[in-house]
């Protein structure tokens, strides 16, 4: 059986005038597994979100079994037979497996009355769970299942809705090796039943093993759409990356001082999170941290800043041991932490730029008499900081953080920390979701900080940015350090492969 199930033709999509998909076309056969690969921001998710009814396309066509479709909501997509297993599962842990499966279409006990047929539900759920190989009673609460098992429930949900096509978005990021193997077995079984699969993953070894055809995306364009046999890991990586980036990063003139360690980490471990992490961060150095989502980068950052506990190991700041689990102490010792989630954790959206900037420094600048706040002094300082980070907001007193662009919000977050004059910065994805111009500004700020002697731990998913901005890169995967790369030996392919852990 090799009829075409899904045909995507000339798909275009842009967000706020920025084109993210350009003329994307490919086909998927009945009973085939299609691998979709590309770097972050290459358009994989957007393509799948259009197919799954999350986003609307600007132009182009989608045909399913020869019929033109245009799902407007995830529900419509599901009704058309498109199941979407997101990276973040959408299950309700307080309900049982069967209730999660049937949540919006419970089988009725009597035709007219609104009672659930527990027996009908159980029997159908059981059959679906058997198919996906989940050995658990359908009545088990989802909260008792491991992450991998929850994913099987999601698959069962799609199967029971008679999906013809199931999309897996990075399904293995939170799975153990054994769970991944089991997932591959199930994908194989689904394929044998005639279902088609789209498999999105960064782990190229898995893609090559599992898929019949592979589509490579870069910058919203299809770089290649060919059978598996046409690809090697090397070719995939070359297709995925490969872009001129030289002028995207400002020149840095200062060198790190390798004789001292600003931040010294020795054997930091936390069961289930990170294992045996050791490194030195020198004054004036930008140390990049590379790795996939779920590699433990952000978790490590939280441990270093004292937000989460660690079971073993030592963290020293300029030779002095940092007490565990105390962000306050970490701040006193000169640590600053710019979080990944600027909206959720970094900023008070409804407060003014000034109030945001001065917040962490209020105690230091309180008046000696009764610890009152001194607004004039703080206002001057806030303006100074805003200038330092090239913030374009006209009046820091009156502008609300909410009204700023992503790039300017990020600058406010940095300014807020600048005010405390930290010596060590942990930046977690500082340029995520901001445009190229604002990125350049953030890079300039980073260079100014290290020129003044600060040490920076720069966490990023964008390998190019790490190559352009850092003195060294350490690669993490599955909570472990996979090695260090010096600026002199940066190579996109080796870095990518180290992170992929093949």
């Amino acid at each position: 059986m090799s009829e075409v199930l899904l045909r995507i033709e000339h798909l275009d999509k842009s967000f706020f005038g920025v084109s993210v998909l350009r003329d994307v076309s490919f086909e998927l056969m009945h009973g085939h597994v299609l691998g979709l690969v590309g770097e972050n921001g290459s358009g994989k998710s957007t393509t799948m979100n259009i197919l799954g009814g999350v986003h609307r396309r600007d132009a182009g066509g989608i045909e399913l079994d020869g019929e033109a479709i245009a799902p407007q909501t995830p529900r419509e997509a599901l009704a058309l037979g498109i199941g979407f297993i997101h990276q973040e599962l959408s299950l309700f842990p307080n309900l049982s497996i069967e209730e999660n499966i049937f949540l919006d279409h419970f089988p009725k006990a009597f035709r007219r009355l609104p009672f659930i047929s527990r027996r009908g539900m159980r029997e159908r759920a059981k059959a679906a769970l058997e198919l996906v190989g989940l050995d658990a009673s359908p009545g088990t609460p989802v909260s008792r299942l491991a992450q991998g098992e929850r994913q099987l429930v999601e698959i069962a949900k799609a199967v029971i809705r008679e999906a013809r096509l199931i999309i897996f978005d990075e399904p293995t990021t939170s799975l153990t090796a054994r769970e991944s193997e089991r997932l591959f077995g199930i994908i194989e079984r689904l394929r044998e039943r005639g279902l088609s699969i789209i498999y999105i993953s960064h782990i190229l070894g898995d893609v090559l093993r599992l898929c019949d055809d592979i589509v490579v995306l870069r910058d919203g364009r299809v770089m290649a759409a060919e059978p598996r046999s046409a690809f090697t890991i090397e070719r995939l990586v070359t297709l995925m990356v490969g872009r001129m980036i030289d002028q995207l990063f400002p020149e840095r003139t200062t060198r790190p001082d390798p004789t001292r360690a600003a931040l010294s980490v020795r054997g930091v471990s936390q069961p289930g999170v990170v294992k045996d992490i050791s490194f030195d961060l020198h004054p004036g150095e930008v140390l990049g941290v590379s790795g996939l989502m779920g590699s433990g980068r952000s978790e490590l950052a939280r441990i270093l800043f004292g937000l989460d506990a660690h079971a073993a190991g030592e963290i020293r700041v300029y030779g002095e041991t940092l007490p565990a689990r105390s962000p306050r102490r970490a701040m006193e010792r000169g640590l600053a932490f710019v979080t990944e989630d600027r909206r959720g954790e970094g900023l008070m959206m409804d407060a003014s730029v000034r109030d945001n900037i001065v917040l962490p420094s209020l105690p230091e600048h309180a008046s000696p008499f009764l610890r009152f706040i001194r607004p004039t002094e703080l206002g001057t300082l806030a303006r100074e900081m805003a200038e330092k980070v090239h913030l374009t907001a006209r009046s820091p007193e009156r502008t609300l953080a909410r009204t700023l662009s992503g790039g300017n919000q990020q600058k406010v977050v940095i300014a807020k920390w600048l005010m405390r004059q930290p010596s060590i910065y942990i930046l977690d994805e500082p340029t995520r979701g901001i445009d190229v111009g604002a990125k350049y500004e953030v890079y300039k700020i980073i260079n100014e900080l290290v020129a003044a002697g600060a040490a920076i731990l720069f966490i990023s998913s964008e390998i190019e940015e790490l190559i352009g901005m850092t003195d060294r890169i350490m690669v993490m995967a599955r909570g472990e350090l996979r090695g260090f790369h010096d600026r002199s030996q940066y190579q996109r392919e080796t870095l990518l492969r180290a992170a992929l852990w093949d």
Partner: protein
Amino acid sequence: MSFSRVGFVLIALRFAPLLLFALLVVAFGMGSDRFLSVANLLNIVTQAASVAVMAIGMTFVLLVRGVDLSVGSTMYLVVVILGLYLSDLSLALSIPAIMLIGLAFGAINAWFITYLRLAAFITTLATLFVGRGLALQISETKMVFQSDTVQTLGRSSALGAPWAIWILAIVAATAWVILTQTPYGRQIYAVGADPDAAAKAGIRVRPIVFSVFCICGVCAAIGGLISVSQAGAAAATFGFQKEFPVIAAAVLGGTSLFGGRGGVLGSIFGAVLVQTTENGLVMLNADPYLYPLVNSAIIFIAAWVDGQRTTITERLEQRKIRIEPG
């Protein structure tokens, strides 16, 4: 190893109210020989029926992360209307009538909360004052006496159990069936666990939130009827601050203030626990000024247990990046 220890703590926290209950019963039993008599225990349940019915309604609201502070005013308003305007009706008519009034009051709350998107806390705090104010206007702050039919109801019993217990049983059974045996009920739990995810799963969140406040209003009305049938008349303080024991009963019974967890049986148990405390203190001839202190201590423990349980559960659900060997 460490997991099983956490598991043990979770189990201990789940049964904490039961342990508390057992402790109280033993303590009161030792302090007074009348406390453990069958008559007194039956009396406790009868006394608890009103709060229990209202706690069942509150459970629906708490399950979707809401709260209804206006239940005490609802019950007072309903009882005033019943005593002043509906006293000639037979029970077959007056009971549905007051249920309708409760429903209407709940629907007003629901409308503000779901369509004007006001916080449930503020909305029901406002209607708490509106409801009581309205009822005081109508009653001219005088005692409202009930008709003979209503008063007889409070004294009558069937098959050895007072009428109040039968009403409680009917409400409880209905609520239990709704929450556990209908799609609507299961969707309430889903909405409470994660409203955004529920909307994405195709559940119509707004009608569900609307309806639970209506249910809570109906239950408050029934609670008012039970209470006034036992007392015979309603003073201006009738139902005053009733929201406190009602919410406490639900929370003591294991219903989470954070939504998505709880049930009918727990709330009844919680109401009985609250009533037991009060009854026991009376039996011990404790200083009446002590009651609020003891009650709030118990509620504090319940809220603390709920908070602990939620923190621990969240920690357990945190994503694991690597699996440690062994």
